[in-house]
């Protein structure tokens, strides 16, 4: 890689204000051809704003953007931008009701006779395009049926078909399991060899170390550092992101209650569509991890425990009681609190206030006879905001205005609202910045210390590290149990169904 080549993109002195807020303050970034460049920073550091400036969705108030040494097109020239840069957002930009082929060629369908759209032509071109970039998706599939991984590949292929060779990936791994992340990384390396340059945005630092060549850190709307990944140790990277040296989190929990006495959760012979013969118990004050790749059944088991699904056989006991199967209210009444898999879908009502969202599951604590007391609700919410250090001007703010980490804290606050005997967490730190993640996991330990049993269903190693025991599921069955002190590679091997000893 010669540095004589002009950078793929170079942004300098970018200032962007939204009213009184300065989202970017003299920010800069330079991405060189063929590299995979990481952009990291805590929530609110200005990453998203930089992405919308780099992709031409927003014009900066000051500063310049240049592609390959030439100034960027005008903001109105969408085609000009699309030939230079594309972004795969966390939020899907495909249209679910249309086929993959049509999504790829939307508004530029191949035409046949009489300027009418040629559907066979569209299909063929889509097939070719997907084959060129080795995306194994049938172009006739309705796009709504794709999973997150396939959708990302389709969006990448679409971006490349416009001629862009610089692609921004905005937290592409947030909704993927470990195996899918590996496939994505394989694809990224493959495309990199073919001359595609990536700007990679992620909360997961180990991914940055795994896939990226260069890293740029933003903090408080400013550029902090750009360095080769190899020259920047983890601690320094975290320090650059947070602006302080991180206190190493205690690896081991100092105390866990005697787990013999009471069960917070006991599951016997549970069987459902995607899992079978699942039996385990979680003692009061114990943290148990339920690990496994996507499709291993871990999420489904956790959802069955809290009543989001009904099992076909087996029984679930929460704190000694047997709630009616498949009923969330029954599970809550029995003493469960839970953080669902996807806060956007199941966790929050985006336009409702923090106070309303946080107290959604505990109406009877808010007043008598079905009447809600707003005063009591706000009081309760204030306590939660303080307890979970949610950054907000007040409880009346709609949750959609919060950052990802703070939204997740609201979901956690609700799970804890009724002092549960059993706390069930599904992917509790997905799409959450480093600081919020440490805070949330710390809160989990704190909760366990008060005698609450915790079940953590996740494939995120950091989530599982705090568990007293980890049960690993593979293809719908619990295959392995590991006590605290496991090695990363052992756990990952168990989740992937690989036997290291064989």
């Amino acid at each position, binding site marked *: 890689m010669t540095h004589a080549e002009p950078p793929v993109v170079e942004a300098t002195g970018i200032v962007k204000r939204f009213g009184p807020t300065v989202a970017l303050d003299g920010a800069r970034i330079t991405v060189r051809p063929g590299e995979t460049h990481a952009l990291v920073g805590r929530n609110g550091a200005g990453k998203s704003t930089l992405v919308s400036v780099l992709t031409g969705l927003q014009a900066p108030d000051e500063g310049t953007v240049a592609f390959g040494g030439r100034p960027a097109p005008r903001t109105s020239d*969408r*085609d000009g931008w*699309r030939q230079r840069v594309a972004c795969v957002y966390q939020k*899907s*930009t*495909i*249209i*679910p*009701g*249309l*086929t993959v082929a*049509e999504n790829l060629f*939307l*508004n*530029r*369908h191949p035409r046949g006779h009489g*300027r*009418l*759209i040629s*559907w066979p032509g569209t299909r063929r071109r889509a097939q070719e395009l997907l084959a*060129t*970039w*080795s*995306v*194994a*998706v*049938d172009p*006739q*599939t*309705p796009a709504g*049926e794709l*999973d997150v*991984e*396939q959708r990302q*590949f389709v969006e990448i292929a679409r971006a490349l078909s416009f001629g862009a060779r610089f692609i921004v990936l905005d937290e592409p791994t947030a909704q993927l399991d470990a195996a*899918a992340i*590996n*496939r994505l990384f*394989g*694809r990224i390396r*493959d495309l990199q*060899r*073919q001359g595609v340059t990536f700007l990679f945005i992620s909360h997961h630092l180990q991914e940055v170390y795994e896939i990226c060549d260069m890293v740029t850190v933003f903090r408080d709307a400013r550029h902090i550092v750009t360095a080769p990944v190899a020259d920047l140790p983890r601690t320094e990277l975290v320090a650059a992101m947070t602006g302080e040296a991180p206190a190493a989190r205690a690896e081991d929990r100092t105390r866990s209650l005697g787990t013999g006495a009471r069960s917070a959760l006991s599951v016997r012979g549970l069987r459902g569509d995607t899992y079978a013969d699942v039996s385990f118990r979680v003692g009061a004050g114990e943290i148990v991890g339920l690990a496994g790749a996507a499709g291993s059944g871990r999420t489904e088991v956790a959802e069955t425990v809290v009543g989001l699904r009904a099992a076909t056989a087996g029984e679930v006991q929460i704190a000694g009681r047997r709630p009616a199967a498949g009923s969330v209210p029954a599970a809550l009444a029995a003493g469960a609190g839970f953080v669902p898999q996807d806060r956007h879908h199941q966790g929050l009502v985006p336009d409702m206030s923090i106070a309303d969202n946080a107290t959604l599951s505990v109406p009877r604590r808010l007043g008598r006879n079905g009447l809600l007391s707003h005063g009591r609700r706000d009081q309760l919410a204030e306590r939660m905001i303080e307890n979970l250090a949610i950054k907000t001007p007040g409880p009346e703010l709609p949750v959609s205005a919060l950052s990802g980490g703070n939204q997740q804290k609201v979901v956690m606050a609700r799970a804890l609202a009724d002092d549960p005997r059993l706390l069930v967490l599904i992917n509790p730190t997905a799409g959450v910045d480093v600081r919020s993640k440490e805070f949330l996991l710390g809160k989990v330990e704190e909760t366990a210390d008060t005698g609450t049993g915790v079940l953590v269903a996740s494939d995120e190693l950091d989530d599982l590290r705090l568990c007293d025991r980890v049960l690993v599921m593979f293809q719908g069955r619990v295959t392995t149990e590991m006590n605290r002190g496991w090695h990363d590679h052992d756990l990952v091997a168990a989740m992937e169904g690989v036997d290291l000893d064989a």
Partner: protein
Amino acid sequence: MPETVLADAPEAAGARGGRTALFGGRIPLARLRDLALVPAIVVIAVVGQIVNPVFLQPDNLMNVLQTMSEMALLVLAQTMILIVRKMDLSLESTMGLAPGVAAWLVVPAGAGHGLGLLPGAWAVPVTLAVGALVGVVNALLIIRFGLNGFIVTLGMLIVLRGILTGISGGQTFFQLPPSMLYLGTAEWLGMPASIWVCLTLFAIAIGVLGWTSFGRSLYAIGGNVDAAKAAGIRTDRVLWIVIVTGSVLAALSGLLLSGRLASVASAQGNGYIFTVFAAAVIGGISLNGGKGTMFGAFSGILLLFMIQNVLTLAGVPAQWIGALNGLIILVALSISRITGGKVQD
């Protein structure tokens, strides 16, 4: 160009791709869903024939098609509007007001309480112009000022109905000029002109929605408006065209009805909108936008009118027709849920 093919390309994708296509992948399932109501239509035809042998006679079928042609045009208009994820409740008032205004301006003052201001030849252009004007006002309020489409058109529904009642004094316009009667009464090649108009417009609409960029942009906007914008679709312009075209179609539908009945009643079109929505949903159009086809909408309205016709032939007393009409809608919805196999939203 890449030479490497990733060994670990998602296998699930291939497996899934196989399931969505039938007949060797030539006919995707999505296309078959359009035909979901065809079996139901066949069943009703068979039942109709058993109930009364008159049912399948050409005259009776033509009668069904003609009675439904005006409503079918409203369904066509509403379908376009629903696909872009809007609604227009005011179509039924537009259908009354547009020919009403034309009649008011054209019908001589003495005989039919009109003003007699314009010669009879102006009636059709005035009708369509009133339709376009209503569409422009709706589009202005909904798109330009960003008001809620449901409430805007609900307001328009009431306002337009009130204007028609006002200009007609609550009475019916008679003695319409020949130009207004033509489309509702003429026969072309042995079939009423209104059937030709209706079928032709549906054929055009099927073509436009299925095979033009403009038509596909309707689905894109209804499915995910941000993605549509990102794909370079001028969404506001498309919405304007759809809403104004919808109102013009409603005016044309009013013209067909006035011509057939040789009058414009002040309540013309009153209550139609419910059947229109029902037909669209039965035909597989999603109220949440981006889903459904024009062919589906057509089979929806056809099914409704065939069932009504069968009931009439079976000698159901007229007093019960109202209750039955509502029941038919519910039954037809259930039928399309069973044959379509999808939860309606």
